[in-house]
């Protein structure tokens, strides 16, 4: 196994109590790997205890990217959260720790 960090990069954005996390393949050939293994269910499991609401995945094949929308992820909202990282900026780095199989997807 290896981590998602080896094949993709990521950025988090915030709006109210909702966080979005992009997952972008370094190599477009790895995009099918992302689609197969970085599912909304796995992202929700990864953030159990952090995310209270729905996790939705959007696919952007032309950009080799996925976009995850995590509801109830920011402690009730950026402007009222008690959290140290109220914006959830660090969620992207946490997601890149997800494990994915070796040697699949790339040519």
């Amino acid at each position, binding site marked *: 196994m290896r981590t998602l960090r080896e094949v993709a990069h990521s950025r988090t954005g915030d709006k109210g109590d909702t966080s*979005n996390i992009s997952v972008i393949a370094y190599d477009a050939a790895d995009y099918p790997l992302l689609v197969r293994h970085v599912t909304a269910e796995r992202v929700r499991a990864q953030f159990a205890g952090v995310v209270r609401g729905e996790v939705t995945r959007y696919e952007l094949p032309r950009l080799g990217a996925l*976009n995850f929308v995590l509801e109830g992820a920011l402690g009730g*909202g950026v402007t009222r959260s008690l959290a140290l990282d109220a914006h959830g900026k660090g969620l992207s780095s946490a997601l890149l720790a997800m494990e994915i199989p070796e040697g699949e997807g790339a040519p």
Partner: protein
Amino acid sequence: MRTRAPRRVRLGTGAGYSGDRIEPAVALAERAEIDYLVFECLAERTIALAQQERRRDAARGYDPFLEARMRAVLPACRRRGIRVVTNAGAANPIAAATLVQALAHELGLAGLRVAAVLGDDVLHLVRDGGLRDANGAVFEPPRDVLSANAYLGAEGIVDALAGGADVVVTGRVADPSLFLAPLVHELGWASDDWTLLARGAIAGHLLECAGQVTGGYFADPGYKDVADLAHLGFPIGEVAEDGTTEITKLPDAGGRVTTRTCTEQLLYEMHDPAAYVTPDVVTDVTGVTMTAIGPDRVRIEGVAGHPRPAMLKVSVGYRDSYLGEGQISYAGPGAVARGRLALEVVAERLRITGVRHSELRMDLVGVNALHGDALASGHGDPYEVRARVAARCDSLSEARRIGDEVETLYTNGPAGGGGVTKAARELIAVTSAFVPRDAARASVTWMEA
């Protein structure tokens, strides 16, 4: 004034948030081939804080860095014919525009035309039942509303530019619209050409966070390296008549512009990529392609558009609660165990001394403060930790007791605790509502030259 519409418009970003660095904007004003310099300075909550300031002093309530920014860039902008657009007017665009006009006199910039765009303030509608919630029902406001500002579109800024403004100062305008407005004005795009408007709005979206598209917020050593991050330059967006956009930067500025930096920024704060809503147009980026066409130059094509929404989003600021917080550090062997003991002790003392709070949060910074215990497990104990207690209270005096009870750990807690800090402050929060666009129309006010 211009007599001929250029084939393409070149936009520089001068700031991506209120406290942003000033020197990259100066570099663009003095050396970049740009037609406009756009400063985005207004975060979600900022306008509520600015509204409070305006109530205390009718001449205030605009961005505190406005004067420093304009002093730094206006002479070069004037000399080189670069027009300025900024939302730094915050809760008081008139006062901000007045300041810019006075500054122009002081700097000897005769004839500089300054316009303020108003119309975003819809506070009067909150109690009249003129706002809607996300489901279309009448918006039920929080108890102590401080401000309500609609996210205006490009319209008011387009009017100001058509009237010859050299500097346009606005309050709440959607960030992409600050950039779309000069494109609409210069390229003559129709207000219902959804494809072109969407392309311009996405150009604005890519540019609105300044350094976040030129390699800022991107570096991850060994994976995503960024050259000369300390001298990070701000972006230049070149937009053609058909909306095709190229993002670049000054060649000697630090940072990088690649399809990777641009893709991260494209998806930043985006939910459904087929329906990214702005006041001017609903954009669809699912067909976007990005191509590196030169060093630090990326072309973005394939943005589609749909008709603009009937309602504008409104940001409602209100007094939420009071935040009390205290922190203390532990180091060396057993630091984590002592930090955990400290948190247990504070929780119990808050209980036995009857400190009232509606929400309590206990963190070990260095272990679990960002993402909780589940994600933190298996990483081993760090050399040092910082215990953090935060609580939501109904009064400032109650909130102060949180930090005080952390401070008592010095002589009443585990061994070796040090570096206590404590804080208590009012929490101004923001919630969203919606308003029919006809109820929040932009208007332009001109300063006396």
